[in-house]
């Protein structure tokens, strides 16, 4: 059997795990690993400009492919810089393995140079973590890490490796395990048959059913089943921010996103529903508004792989723990032979009601934003983006108004196309995530919708885009302010703009782009928007930054009123439901 050092074992194990690429940044404690990386050619490496970007890029890679994103950083500041990205992945249940260098074993605890307790500091934001004590354990730990990260409810796993463990002079036998079995970890394989049957009966008896589907449907690869089920039941479907794309966004049965900035028809339908099928969603506070007032007349079926997500904030009447694809398959099977019939008259009335709401309030039925002025409206930018990219781009976003506008106005027909930080709400996510997406999908169109605030949180990655030829398109909705903060200050703080304005301090993004070797465009006139955007996306192999000056006074609507129920919303600056 071959003898390998710890560093070589790590790289070999990654290759055996099928890893094609890692995102990282070298440093003292990781140098043995980086040398091992240099001496092999199976695993590629993307050198980012800040460790936070490594985690976001790996995250974007994972979200767009469904594979595990891999990060390699050094100890101390390398590890702490990665924390924000790990927390981002944790909140959105993204499979990720983060390998961090650590100071040599006998220096641990001595406040050595670049020492930080990575296992400790990351503990609340990882699915699991390992501190490697012996190089011989590396293959089995890597195997376990990937298994844990990618199965059940996915999440990030940290492997912290002291430098002496990867010493090139200490060599051991290498054997990569085919399978791994852990007595303390066995995610559910099937949903409970009795509960599934009960759920189907409830759905068939529903007069006003709705399907509320979240990111778990995408993570669990159950979009096909979800669509089939919705068609079979003729039920309306709403997606969470994380679930967009799980059900075709342009389909008749799709009501748009629900929640704080959700569509009126979606929130109304939820509020008035008598049976809610929640799949891979977790009744987040940005969805439910006040849990006590949430959907007062509904019986709730909740399907999720994670038992801890069920009945956490809203009690489920029919809880089903299991993989969403298998549970939905079981439901479809029962439906195929079910003798009960739906009340077709009731369903017809339900759709009539929903279509009335849609006609009256729907954002996509006709523009609800101003179309008569000279100002570019942010909503119009997203609609133009949707049309220019033919609705088929990978779209990442940062966090704020632009994120909500994109979620509302870009109709995602396919899963894994909408990549954003939903749970943690991490500004700075968009650009590095777009790099990961572009790396994984070389020929695809990748757009990063951002704001002039968010983009500056990871703007250094423009340099990484240059080095690795990652021609992402950056669509910056520039309103010269932290838009969402300003919106809240308008609504709740009498427009006292405490530290949310940039005044005259913004950089010249066009020149900045040129300095990085990319293309910058400034768009200030409404009539230029479409032509410039077409020009931008025609430059297939260049990074292009569109600095689009939008109406700085625009707010995101609808917006739920707190405390209230699902249906309590501001429709615009003066009207509410």
């Amino acid at each position, binding site marked *: 059997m071959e003898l390998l050092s710890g560093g070589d074992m790590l790289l070999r194990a990654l290759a055996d795990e099928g890893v094609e690429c890692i995102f990282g940044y070298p440093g003292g404690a990781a140098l043995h690993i980086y040398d091992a990386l240099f001496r092999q050619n199976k695993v590629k490496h993307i050198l980012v400009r800040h460790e936070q970007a490594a985690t976001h890029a790996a995250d974007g890679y994972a979200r767009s492919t469904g594979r595990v994103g891999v990060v390699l950083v050094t100890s101390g500041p390398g590890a702490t810089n990665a924390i924000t990205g790990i927390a981002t992945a944790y909140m959105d249940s993204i499979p990720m393995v983060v390998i961090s260098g650590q100071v040599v074993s006998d220096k641990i605890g001595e406040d050595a140079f670049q020492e930080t307790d990575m296992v*400790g500091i990351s503990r*609340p934001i990882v*699915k699991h973590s390992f*501190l490697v004590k012996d190089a011989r354990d590396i293959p089995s730990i890597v195997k376990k890490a990937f298994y844990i990260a990618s199965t059940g409810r996915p999440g990030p796993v940290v492997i912290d490796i002291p430098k002496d463990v990867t010493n090139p002079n200490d060599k051991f036998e290498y054997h990569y395990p085919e399978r791994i079995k852990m*007595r*303390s970890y066995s995610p559910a394989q099937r949903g409970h048959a009795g509960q599934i049957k009960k759920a189907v009966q409830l759905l068939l008896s529903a007069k006003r059913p709705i399907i509320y589907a979240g990111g778990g449907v995408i993570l669990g690869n159950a979009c096909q089943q979800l669509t089939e089920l919705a068609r079979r039941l003729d039920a309306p479907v709403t997606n969470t921010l994380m679930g967009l794309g799980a059900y075709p966004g342009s389909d008749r049965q799709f009501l748009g996103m629900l929640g704080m900035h959700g569509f009126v028809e979606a929130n109304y339908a939820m509020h008035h529903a008598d049976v809610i099928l929640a799949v891979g969603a977790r009744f987040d506070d940005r969805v439910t508004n006040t849990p006590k007032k949430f959907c007062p007349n509904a019986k709730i079926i909740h399907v999720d792989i994670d038992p*801890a997500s069920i*009945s956490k904030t809203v009690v489920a009447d029919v809880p089903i723990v299991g993989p969403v694809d298998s549970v939905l398959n079981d439901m479809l099977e029962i439906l195929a032979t079910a003798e009960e019939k739906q009340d077709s008259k009731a369903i017809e009335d339900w759709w009539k009601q929903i279509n009335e709401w849609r006609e009256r309030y729907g954002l996509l039925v006709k523009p609800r934003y101003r179309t008569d002025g000279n100002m570019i409206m942010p909503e119009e930018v997203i609609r133009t983006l949707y049309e220019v990219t033919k609705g088929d781009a990978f779209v990442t976003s940062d966090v704020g108004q632009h994120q909500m506008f994109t979620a509302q106005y870009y109709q995602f027909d396919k899963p894994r196309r909408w990549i954003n930080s939903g749970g943690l709400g991490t500004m700075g996510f968009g650009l590095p995530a777009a790099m990961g997406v572009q790396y994984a999908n070389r020929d695809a169109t990748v757009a990063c919708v951002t704001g002039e605030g968010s983009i500056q949180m990871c703007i250094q990655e423009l340099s990484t885009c240059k080095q690795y030829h990652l021609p992402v398109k950056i669509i910056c909705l520039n309103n010269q302010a932290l838009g969402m903060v300003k919106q809240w200050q308008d609504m709740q703080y009498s427009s006292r703009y405490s530290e949310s304005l940039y005044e005259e301090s913004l950089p010249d993004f066009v020149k900045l782009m040129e300095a990085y070797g990319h293309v910058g465009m400034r768009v200030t006139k409404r009539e230029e928007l479409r032509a410039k955007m077409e020009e931008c996306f025609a430059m297939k192999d260049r990074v292009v930054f569109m600095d689009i000056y939008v109406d700085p006074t625009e707010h995101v609507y609808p917006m739920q009123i707190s405390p209230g129920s699902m249906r309590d919303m501001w429709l615009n600056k003066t009207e509410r439901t």
Partner: protein
Amino acid sequence: MRRIISLLMENEPGALSRVVGLFSQRGYNIESLTVAPTEDRTLSRLTLTTIGDDHKIEQITKHLNRLIEVVKLVDLTEGAHIERELMLVKVRATGAQRAEVKRCVDIFRGQIVDVTATVYTIQITGTSDKLDAFFQAVGEASILEVVRSGVSGIGRGEKVLTI
């Protein structure tokens, strides 16, 4: 409501900190905690008491189960069970008090495990309520030092927590 949750987990460094960390992260309270390896050295048995309504306890047990190193878990208070806590208590015992304290220890079926001219060190086992009652009986003023082990528990009858 007070609950006793007992679990088996991998006897590995860091496992305990994950359990304890979970409680602080999610705002749960630990009233007492006791942990030691079992006859199978690869496993530790951890028993903790906590207070919360049914909803909170359900969340606690779900989150504990979700920890990778937790192998199996039981809420002992859901069924018939035996709970015990060990206490060592140092009591001032001089003059007429000495006999009084001794009587009290006998009533509580404790043992005096160390004696000096002025101090008794007493060992008592029982439910937490019983240990609390002992303080009252002996008089809190005479107590010098108290060490409690935290609650251990086991289900009654055939039911066992094992892998």
